[in-house]
């Protein structure tokens, strides 16, 4: 079922041109999708410029191109489910081809939990147009009205009962004008046979057999291996190096300096020294033997403890207003009994299980790259800039990704491979070690937040002030940028759901002294941590049940439009009509998860339940965590329950798996010591000192319920993550009365 690269496509095109396969695409122009078909026998411009492809081969096999990167979210399966369903293709005749980086596909940046949201409609239209064409071809052959022909599972049936298979109709279809969008009818939801089911994912068997092709599993071309020593401080440079011992190692072929980047980091390689060897072990040994002296540059003073103090100082005083209603500042200044809390969370590294890896070959007019990339078009641009070629001349083949979590949207590793390929004239695979990954990431921002609130006589929040300060992603793209972009603030800060007459949200500045990037759920992670922890703190102060208080605090069913409160808010780029911020839906997931977890039940001593709810990536999630904290302060997560409303979902089992995994990924924020810096250098290096959740840290059961919905599809990969740490910390408080405001939890429970 799986075919990872479209290496064969060229061959396929040639061989089928003679036999006449059909290639279809949807074409996005002027906003409105329109279905076109290209006939290979007489290649048309339209076929070449189509955004997406489905090809029907003369043998009846359907090739569906997946233009998004596969990193465990089963997008390859989801895209095939959508197209094959509308097309009425038999599932065993479907093959998925992984698309290369190519602007013709439109956006390929596989992050932001938006692959389905961006593509579902056009994929459905494309599938439906093929189905229509098959019916038309049969009707023409039989000389009957098209309405008397129906298509099901690769077969067109006439009302008289006679049938023709799709394979038998390919040749006829070649001479038929493909339908216009107005002519096609999408299936009704009740007619879906693949969409919204739990069908098995197409790569499952390959994975279980060890046959899936990840970046380091590419052996065509046969490459030399490069391992790179990078400056330990961002902005640092090689001062001098001694490669004598390295070159003496058997198997080491060359030692090459990669130039230091210019200006803002962007996705440029950090520079450093590459050791090129016949095999990976020789390269690693060569790297150990290399001695380099660095010029650390201006970030050599970065120290996490000092920086933490400065962030906390920033949020202690007024900052730029982001959203305001009423007169929160005044009320709070005069309140004698307000609740005040400061929250802090360290940098984190995405640490996908597969470290970054890419292979490149340089030719004089093009570069071919095979990479575990979330965004092949960014590889094209970054590699192009690195080797001085237009991006159109960079061919990026996307392998399976061993996790991404945002790290692999930044193709510095592909640019390293391409540069070394250019310098050596050889195929080069750059293999990052785990140490390279932990120490050279684009880190999740370090953050501090200050919240204060006063409660009215009923215990409700009457005034709320929230300040945030974190190292902005903006700094990665604009040198010296210290203020967050509005699209970083809209991740759980601007869209605060608390229903209060007086609210003031402020954002401070923070100079980044390392490379900042996005990690699964981005700033939703620390914003939801603060907001959802604070609401539980207020519930405690008011003497109320967490869940009841949370519902009362977010208020009645309504559509919240924060732009009416002087806030800049782009709603994840989605229109407000289709994707409103619907407090009713947020309430619903809370009520649902309370039910699932039997909220309010009596628990033995040392056990506690915590709840948190949050909308991110247009999806509503509520999570309950049950923990046990022993007298000695040992923490055990017993179980979790999650309710998710992501609108229409394509694969119900994938959604559950993503939600389970996204929850456990959220444990990282609570348990991990995070990434810390001293003298500009990362102090962690591998999984022994950068702690990520293991089975022993995780609940053995994460029960997930998907709220059935006909709403347009929203995000799935990320939204389960931000709620986890606050639900966990709220549960810890319920279990033992200790409130965690500073992450990681560390030994705070032992004290």
């Amino acid at each position, binding site marked *: 079922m799986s075919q990872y690269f479209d290496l064969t496509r060229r061959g396929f095109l040639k061989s089928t041109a003679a036999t006449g396969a059909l290639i279809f695409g949807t074409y996005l122009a002027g906003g409105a999708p329109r279905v076109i078909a290209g006939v290979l026998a007489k290649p048309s411009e339209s076929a070449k410029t189509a955004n997406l492809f489905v090809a029907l081969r003369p043998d009846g096999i359907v090739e569906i191109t997946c233009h998004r990167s596969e990193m465990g979210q089963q997008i390859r399966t989801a895209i095939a489910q959508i197209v094959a369903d509308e097309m009425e293709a038999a599932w065993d005749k479907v093959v998925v081809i992984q698309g290369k980086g190519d602007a013709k596909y439109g956006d390929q940046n596989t992050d932001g939990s938006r692959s389905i949201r961006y593509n579902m409609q056009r994929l459905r239209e494309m599938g439906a147009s093929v189905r229509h064409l098959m019916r038309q071809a049969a009707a023409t052959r039989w000389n009957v009205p098209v309405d008397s022909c129906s298509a099901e599972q690769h077969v067109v049936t006439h009302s008289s009962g006679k049938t023709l298979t799709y394979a038998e109709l390919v040749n006829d279809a070649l001479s038929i004008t493909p339908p216009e969008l107005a002519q096609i009818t999408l299936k009704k939801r009740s007619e879906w046979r693949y969409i919204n089911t739990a069908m098995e994912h197409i790569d499952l068997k390959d994975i279980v057999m060890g046959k899936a092709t990840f970046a380091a599993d590419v052996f065509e071309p046969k490459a030399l291996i490069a391992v790179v020593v990078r400056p330990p401080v961002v902005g640092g440079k090689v001062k001098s190096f001694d490669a004598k011992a390295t070159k003496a190692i058997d198997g080491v072929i060359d030692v090459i300096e990669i130039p230091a980047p210019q200006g803002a980091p962007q996705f440029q390689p950090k520079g450093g020294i590459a050791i090129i060897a016949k095999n990976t072990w020789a390269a690693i040994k060569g790297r150990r033997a290399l001695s380099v002296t660095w010029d650390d540059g201006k970030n050599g003073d970065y120290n996490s403890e000092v920086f933490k103090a400065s962030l906390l100082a920033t949020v202690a005083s007024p900052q730029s207003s982001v959203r305001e209603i009423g007169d929160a500042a005044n009320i709070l200044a005069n309140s004698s009994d307000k609740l005040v809390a400061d929250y802090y969370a360290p940098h984190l590294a995405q640490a996908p299980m597969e470290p970054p890896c890419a292979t490149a070959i340089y030719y004089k007019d093009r570069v071919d790259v095979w990479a575990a990339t979330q965004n092949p078009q960014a590889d094209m641009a970054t590699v192009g800039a690195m080797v001085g070629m237009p991006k159109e001349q960079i061919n990026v083949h996307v392998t399976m990704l061993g996790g991404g979590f945002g790290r692999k949207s930044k193709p510095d590793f592909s640019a390293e491979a391409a540069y070394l390929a250019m310098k050596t004239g050889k195929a080069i695979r750059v293999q990052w070690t785990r140490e390279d990954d932990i120490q050279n990431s684009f880190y999740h921002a370090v953050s501090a937040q200050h919240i204060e609130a006063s409660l009215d006589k009923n215990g409700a929040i009457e005034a709320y002030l929230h300040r945030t300060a974190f190292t902005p992603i903006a700094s990665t793209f604009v040198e010296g940028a210290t203020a967050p972009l509005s699209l970083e603030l809209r991740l759980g800060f601007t869209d605060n759901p608390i229903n209060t007459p007086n609210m003031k949200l402020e954002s401070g500045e923070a100079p980044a002294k390392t490379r900042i990037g996005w990690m699964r759920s981005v700033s939703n992670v620390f914003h939801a941590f603060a907001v959802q922890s604070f609401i539980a703190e207020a519930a405690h102060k008011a003497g109320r049940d967490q869940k009841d208080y949370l519902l009362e605090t977010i208020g009645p069913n309504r559509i919240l439009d924060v732009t009416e409160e002087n806030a800049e808010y782009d709603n994840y780029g989605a229109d407000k009509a289709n994707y409103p911020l619907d407090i009713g839906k947020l309430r619903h997931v809370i009520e649902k998860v309370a039910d699932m977890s039997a909220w309010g039940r009596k628990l033995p001593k040392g056990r506690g339940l915590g709840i948190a709810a949050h909308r991110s990536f247009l999806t509503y999630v509520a999570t309950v965590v049950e923990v046990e904290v022993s007298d000695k302060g040992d923490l055990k997560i017993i179980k979790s329950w999650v309710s998710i409303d992501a609108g229409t979902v394509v694969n119900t089992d994938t959604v559950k798996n993503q939600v389970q995994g996204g929850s*456990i990924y959220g444990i990282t924020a609570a348990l991990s010591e995070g990434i810390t810096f001293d003298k500009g250098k990362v102090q962690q290096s591998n999984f022994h000192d950068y702690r990520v959740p293991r089975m022993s840290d995780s609940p053995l059961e994460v029960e997930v319920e998907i709220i059935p919905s006909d709403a347009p599809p929203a995000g799935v990969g990320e939204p389960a993550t931000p709620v986890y740490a606050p639900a966990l910390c709220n549960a810890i408080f319920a279990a033992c009365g200790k409130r965690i405001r500073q992450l990681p939890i560390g030994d705070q429970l032992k004290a």
Partner: protein
Amino acid sequence: MITFIVNGKTHEFSGDPTTPVLWYLRDELQLTGSKFGCGMGQCGACTVHINGVAQRSCVLPVSAVSGSKITTIEGLSEDGEHPVQQAWIEHKVPQCGYCQCGQMMQAASLLATNPTPTDDEIVQEMSGNICRCGTYPRIHKAIKSASKTLAAVQYYDPKVKGEQA
């Protein structure tokens, strides 16, 4: 010259004896099911069986496996029919899949010595294997169901497999 048996076939290696088994398997034999995750015995992505017992191949020099029988995921079964692999399919365990060969090799080794592990024994045995996608609940369930398949015990006997060569 170091000699060992990989998935039932005898191999000889005359390169650097400090080469970790992982890199030998991947670079020389192109057996890529065993993955590189950390290179220091911390994550289990590289887990293979040495004489039937799960070990981290990234920290195991080839010199230490002279005369041993090495089984990788590619040799666990002909066509994915090992009960552990079947349970992985039944529970749709994998997300990205990168850690899963190591997870399955660890699980197969556990069940070969302890066919009916308790919940805690599973957690203990499996906590050396990291899955960043967070598939732990499904791994746990899959091991329980493989353990229920009596065949899990009888099917895979690495000693027999090794001797076929």
